[in-house]
């Protein structure tokens, strides 16, 4: 679309960074600003920038499956979090969290079932944004 050498070069550097950053945003969301929604938008933005600079084919190389799959997976994960609680005999959408001690030193990782839910949110948001933008861009081409 609006491909220039500058854009393409910087994108090559930016994509990995923003992909990692979106995951980072998602993980830290529980304690500090961030979360699944923003993470999903960042992820989508990264993929969309790739699409804008190098076209649809390269985007499909970066994400070799339909955005629909992301939406479906995200919704299933979110719903699965809710249903999972039933498996433990608790009402739908009961959450749980705790700590896993990390090896070496006194660090610990806090886990929460809502992280799975948040991952579902992230994937759905990313799938929706990428899907719509991709469909519209295809319309243009």
């Amino acid at each position, binding site marked *: 679309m609006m491909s220039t050498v500058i854009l393409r070069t910087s994108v090559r550097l930016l994509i990995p960074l923003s992909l990692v950053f979106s995951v980072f945003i998602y993980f830290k969301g529980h304690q*500090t600003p961030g979360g699944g929604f923003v993470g999903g938008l960042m992820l989508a933005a990264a993929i*969309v920038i790739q699409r804008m600079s190098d076209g649809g084919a390269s985007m499909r190389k970066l994400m070799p499956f339909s955005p629909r799959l992301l939406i479906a997976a995200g919704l299933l994960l979110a719903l699965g979090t*809710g249903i999972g609680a039933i498996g433990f005999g608790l009402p739908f959408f009961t959450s749980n969290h705790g700590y896993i001690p990390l090896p070496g030193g006194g660090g610990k990782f806090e886990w929460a079932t809502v992280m799975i839910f948040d991952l579902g949110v992230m994937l759905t948001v990313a799938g929706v944004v990428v899907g719509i933008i991709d469909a519209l861009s295809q319309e243009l081409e």
Partner: protein
Amino acid sequence: MNPIGYFLVGALAPALCGLVTLLVPRLWVLPRVLVSLLGPIVTLTALGMLMSGHGVAGTRGHWPWMSALKLDLTFNADPLGLFFALLVAGVGMLIVLYARAYFGPDASSLRRFYPTLLLFMTAMIGLVLSDNFLLMLLFWEMTSISSFLLIGWERDDPVAVKKAMQAFIITGAGGLCLMAGLILLGVTSGVWSFSELMAIRQSLEGSPQLTAAFLLVFAGAAAKSAQWPLHFWLPGAMAAPTPVSAYLHSATMVKAGVYLVGRTWPIFCAMPTVIYWPAVLIPLGAITMVYGAFIALQRHDLKQIFAYTTVSQLGLLMTMYGLAAYTWHDHPVLYWDVTQILNHALYKAPLFILAGAIGHIASRDITHLRGFFYQGRTQAIMTIVILLAAYALAAGPLTLSFSAKEFFFYQIANAIKASGSNMFWMLAAAGVLTGMFNVAIFIRLATTLLGKADHAHGHHDDHHHHHEHEHGLWPAFLWIPGLIIVAFQYISGLVPFAYDKLFLSVERTAGNYDFKTHLGNILPMTWDAHLGLPLYMSLTGMVLGVALGLSPLLRGVRKDPHDSLYPGFYLMATKGGGYVFRLLQTGHLTTYIALTSVTIVGLFCWAIARHGDAFAWPTEKLIEPFDQLLVGYMLTAMVCISALLMPMVRMRASRVLVLGACGFSVTGVYYFYQAPDLALTQISIEIVSLVLFLLVLSLLPVEKKPLPGRNAVGRAVLAVLVGGVMFWLTLSSSTGDRPVMPYKAADGSAIQHLGHYFLRNSYHGVDSLNVHPREAQLDSLVDRGAEHRISYGSGSDDHHAEAQHDGHMTLHKGGGGNNVVNVILVDFRGFDTMGEITVLGLAAMGVWTLLRRRREGEEETIPTQEARP
């Protein structure tokens, strides 16, 4: 095993087996049939184990699902529910076999048919076993949906689809009434299950809400059970393949309404308010009963005849429950009265089954069936079976049907005595008339099938797919299921002892009426009938029926005038809807924006007029020292400038950029006022929406010359008004008094605002709300955000010590996150987020579908815009 396991297995087994059949390779017909058969068999086994383990005195199974929404998996195996479930599963088994014979070895039809049928079976079994109102409603709607799929089976046939829509819309509207009624009942009484309501029914104070609830519930039941004047959907539903008619319209779906009335009559009749019970049920039921039988006699299509007799019988059942209000020696004259329901299923299912079978090999039009008996061996057998069933329809002696009809007439006689009202003589006349029509139908059927053949018709018209006649065992299953079912009619009629043995446990008639008081429990069988009003009524009906059946009267085809009701309403709805559509959907974006803005301003003015004080100007000092606000002012100025630039910029792309500038300035404001979460989200949204806008704009048609100045003053005024409203709303929502929340802090003091509650409990819960009973058992936890949210933890973290201070709980845990916004989104309000991302996903689907349609439209050069009015 907890009873809930039996219930879940019993209710869900058919649907699961239906899903499994989808995995069976396409051409393996026999395994498909066997897997489908497994569904009802598992159901019967599970329910049998439940009964042998717990008896039938009302075993409840309970499992919390969404307790805060009053929706729990609460089942109750009481006599009425169990009886229905066994009937549904038992007849279902035979229908599975019949469907195989009916569709023949047509693999693709069976592949589609069985899962749908089994889904319906699950819905029906769940419906009759549910104790919770809302759970029952869920299954109720499931029967509507699955029956829609089944009735509209011939999906290429526009008539069948139209009839399926008709059935769906009418039963669906009834379902909405039922939902309103049940919610009203739950809210008024405070209990959400039938058995609890039954326990407290005497104590319920008379209130108009209960009367309204009764009327609404009855409306739902009447629509489902095809009561006049909504009965016309049932004959229309005969567009379905015959296995569906035999199943849905004899023993199952149409009985859902009857079931509901049977389920609720002991409750409503005991309530001091519901004096209308007999006044509502009896007239409607009686009209349905006579009218259905009257039309049935004047139909020529076998399925239509039986459809209208079904309508008639459903009317009878409703009347009967209406009569339940009249007691005899302070006993209700009936309890669940499964005899009538069973009796109907035992002759109506065989009638439909045989109607399909005869239509399969000859014709369903009785004028073409003269001398059918003599046309061959199969024809002779089918004639015998259908006449056996039709004899039961006529309630001839030595059948269960005879006893059931006697019982019904007895109830009328009792009502005459108990009420002393002469109105019931009219009901008695209606009963005799119905009996007369039914006998006449039997006589006509018998004389036609056994009569001398004038000419034979070879064509068959029941089945739309013509295929070769099969050889082997399967064709016999066209009539074997009918024979099996109708055999029960005669076994029960001839050996009353056997019937009582089987059904007395679910039919508590003991001592309720005076047939054979000295024998106690036994139903009035043919040889027990003694002289009295009921027997005279039966005999009168039979004599008149034979005379009418042989006479040349009423032999033509009569159109049911109610058939035009639905098309009329449909036309009105579409015409009216079209008018409103053309009024509002002009296709101009500016109109939409103007409409929305005017609505916002209008609603705001209305709110001000009603509750002006809620929008009062805040009295507290808002402005902080200037030096702290300098950056804020600068950012705000940028927002304002970009907003003012908007109408001046002409090019679309530039407008998008200006809008972006506005958004980024807002991001700055958020950041400056310490809302990093909002800032982060806003900046991501800005990036993505910028791209989206640019894409969409380049897809839009080339912009025509904008119309400067036209209505500019009006637009400016509207813009200023909307801006003012939004400003005021934001101001009052951030400074005004918020409603007090019903949450308690750990020390017992009230928490003023929901926001405070979230702040306090985001990381670890310190405040308590509703505690789920399971949590105490689990010896851990507790905190609840909103009512439906609880969090519970393993209790191995550093807040343990703090929790020890609290007397009544071992450990509080909150959402476990310091980011309050995120914890609210994914934990406290997780349900909402779930809904939101679902909507997002749906929106994406919508975009894809629209774009694809657009592209296909271009390729086929179909003018999409011009085709619309």
